[in-house]
């Protein structure tokens, strides 16, 4: 396995204002035809509070990249073949208690101090003093603590991402039970110092760790039942508040209904409420409006934007829809065949595209007859990702292909501040990646 050049210069590329940085990420899949290099050396940063668009044709590895943040990949057949996803969890600002002040730049949150050096700066945190976790390497337990709490995901089809046999409240409540059980107990007036069976049972009930005996006792034994009910009430209040924030009318009724009783737009609001329940630092939105009616798409996008701004969270917005990306994203990363081929400010990408693929994408005005995920103007289709040769992945379809392109593989390098492109036209002497193994 090769390590890409940027990996060694991590301390310099990971600026303090980034919440996450992906370096040389490789996710492969074992298949009958060979090893599919679905994501094959992806590099990008996610800045604090920004919306980063991830665009590209179908099958180019957008979803796999997004899922790598939460390690939601089927392994096997998937293989985490290399690279890192560094993430800096944040905590509520001590200076203002989350309201926003000068210390935290108004966002109400600050980086969690590095546990090794207590914020002084050390190799573990690459000198930044902020806790830095490699999401590909943290333990399963730590990953579970991050999922839904610090990093959340909004899925493409809310009709499939909600469990048909549980009520909305039962599903949304799980986020709080997993990550906010201490707050729930406190809100229910249960002293954290209390010991004994009752306190133990209540703690287990509030953390989804309840045993059959706890449930039986909570159903039959009046004193415990009363206290379990006040935990239940604290939970219901939080669920209703989370639903209310996404402008769902009558949250208390919606909580008790099942997913099939709601419209697609309502279901996606529920998914958003669920994703934002714990004020995550990073939200991965994988085509959150594709499965919805055109009429509700804009409203859902506005909602995500509003709630994100209020919290100061960062969003990775995966989409095919370039006009939406242009409207809502601060920066855009263009992916092709498992690589980021161009990344920059939204302005730079749309007004000054440099990579031939990006130019093709922008020229391809989607019409109603263009199948979803296809781009009209670029002839050909995404190459097979099975054991790729060490050449530019776009060479087969590129009008400006030349000798250098098939000899080696271009990597991202700056053409302007904040604007990187991987193409030999821009960098005739571009550093080359080592041949793919």
């Amino acid at each position, binding site marked *: 396995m090769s390590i890409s050049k940027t990996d060694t210069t991590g301390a310099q590329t990971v600026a303090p204002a980034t919440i996450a940085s992906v370096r040389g990420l490789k996710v492969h899949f074992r298949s009958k035809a060979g090893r599919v290099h679905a994501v094959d050396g992806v590099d990008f940063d996610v800045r604090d509070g920004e919306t980063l668009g991830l665009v590209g044709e179908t099958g180019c590895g957008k979803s796999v990249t997004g899922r790598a943040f939460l390690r939601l990949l089927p392994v096997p057949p998937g293989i985490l073949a290399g690279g890192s996803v560094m993430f800096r969890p944040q905590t509520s600002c001590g200076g203002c208690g989350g309201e926003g002040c000068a210390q935290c730049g108004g966002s109400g949150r600050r980086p969690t101090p590095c546990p090794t050096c207590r914020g002084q700066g050390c190799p573990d945190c690459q000198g930044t003093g902020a806790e830095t976790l490699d999401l590909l390497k943290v333990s399963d337990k730590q990953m579970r603590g991050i999922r*839904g709490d610090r990093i959340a995901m909004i899925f493409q089809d809310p009709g499939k991402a909600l469990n*048909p046999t*549980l009520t909305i409240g039962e599903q949304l409540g*799980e986020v709080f039970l997993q990550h906010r059980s201490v707050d729930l107990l406190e809100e229910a007036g249960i002293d954290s110092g209390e010991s004994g069976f009752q306190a133990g049972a209540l703690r287990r009930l509030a953390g989804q760790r309840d045993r059959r005996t706890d449930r039986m006792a909570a159903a039959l034994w009046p004193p415990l039942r009363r206290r379990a009910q006040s935990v239940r009430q604290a939970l219901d209040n939080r669920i209703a508040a989370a639903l209310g924030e996404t402008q769902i009318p009558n949250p208390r009724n919606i909580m008790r209904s099942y997913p099939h009783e709601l419209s697609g737009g309502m279901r996606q609001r529920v998914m958003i409420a669920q994703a934002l329940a714990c004020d995550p630092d990073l939200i991965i939105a994988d085509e959150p409006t594709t499965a919805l009616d055109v009429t509700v798409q804009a409203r859902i996008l506005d909602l995500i934007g509003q709630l994100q701004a209020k919290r100061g969270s960062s969003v990775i917005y995966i989409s095919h829809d370039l006009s939406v990306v242009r409207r809502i994203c601060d920066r855009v990363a263009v992916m092709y065949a498992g690589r980021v081929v161009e990344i920059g400010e939204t302005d730079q990408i749309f007004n000054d595209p440099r990579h031939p693929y990006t130019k093709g994408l922008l020229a391809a005005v989607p019409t109603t007859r263009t199948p979803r995920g296809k781009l009209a103007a670029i002839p050909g289709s995404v190459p097979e990702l099975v054991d790729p040769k060490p050449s530019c992945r776009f060479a087969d379809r590129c009008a400006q292909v030349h000798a250098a392109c098939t000899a080696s593989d271009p990597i991202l390098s700056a053409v302007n501040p904040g604007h990187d492109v991987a193409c030999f036209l821009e960098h005739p002497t571009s550093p080359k990646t080592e041949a793919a193994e």
Partner: protein
Amino acid sequence: MQLRDYIIRRLIALPILLLGVSIIVFSLTRIAGSPVGVYLSHEMSPEEVLQIEQRYNLDKPLPVQYAYWLRGVTQGDFGWSGVASAPVAEVFPAKFAATMELSVAAAVVAVALGLWLGTYAGVRRNKMPDHITRIVAVSGASLPLFWFGIVLLIVFWANLGWFPVGRSTNDIWESIAHPTGFYTLDAILAGSWTALMDALWHLVLPSITLGFGAVAIIARMMRSSLIEELQQDYVDAARAKGLPERLVLKRHARRNALVPTVTVIGLTIAFLMQGAIAAEIIFRWPGLGRWMASAVVRGDQATIMTYVLFTSVLFLVANLVVDIIYAKLDPRVRLGD
């Protein structure tokens, strides 16, 4: 439709269905021959036979005979069992209890083991445990019940002597009353540990024999539907919330996988009733199945009719219970559509 309305509607339909079933079975048994045989002995003269036919209305047309039979049933008179040499209604309760005890034990074994094996295999798809449960399941579905039972009988009763046959060891039960007819319950009511162990010990071989086939069917269904559910987006969504794998499986995937499995469980109830006949014969279990088998051989029509009526009730009630569980599990199910 409200669950309560649905149950009421089905309960109203129950007698009508039973009436239909009884007409069909009554006609079939009468076509097979006259039921007069059970009342006769070798010394009777033709005149005496005629008298008996008249006494029991067997000389009347078939619909009239059916009407007499139906009137008897509504008054609790199910006819005379030649096999038991007693009125059917008198023998029935004890044999019913014996069969129910065996079937319930077999169903508990089948459902518990089937769901457990299916879950275990589904989570470890294409790994060793999955292959092993597949072998168990295929053999369970393809070994004839009577053969499997006889093998168990030879190995564990005849050779090893670990388990008994029949229903009880007489001397233990002499002092124990039978208020319910279910020996396990009776032993618990009498507070006798030895009697309870004896009752359970006698249940082991016949209930394994009877439940084995159903284990296989339930396990395979559970496995395949669990594998399908584990690939759904909501499973990843549950993981994305931070749920531990244990809860992802228990609260999310398994609950959904149970929906189709419950339907299959309902069907296996009929399977158990069929199997009970063979299992009771092999293990000398004094239940309805063994009684029914002798009744068929001896042309004991009153017994056959009662057995069929009873099995129909059981089947319809089991289906109703399955429908209720089904609706409880899956809120999208609209009962009565």
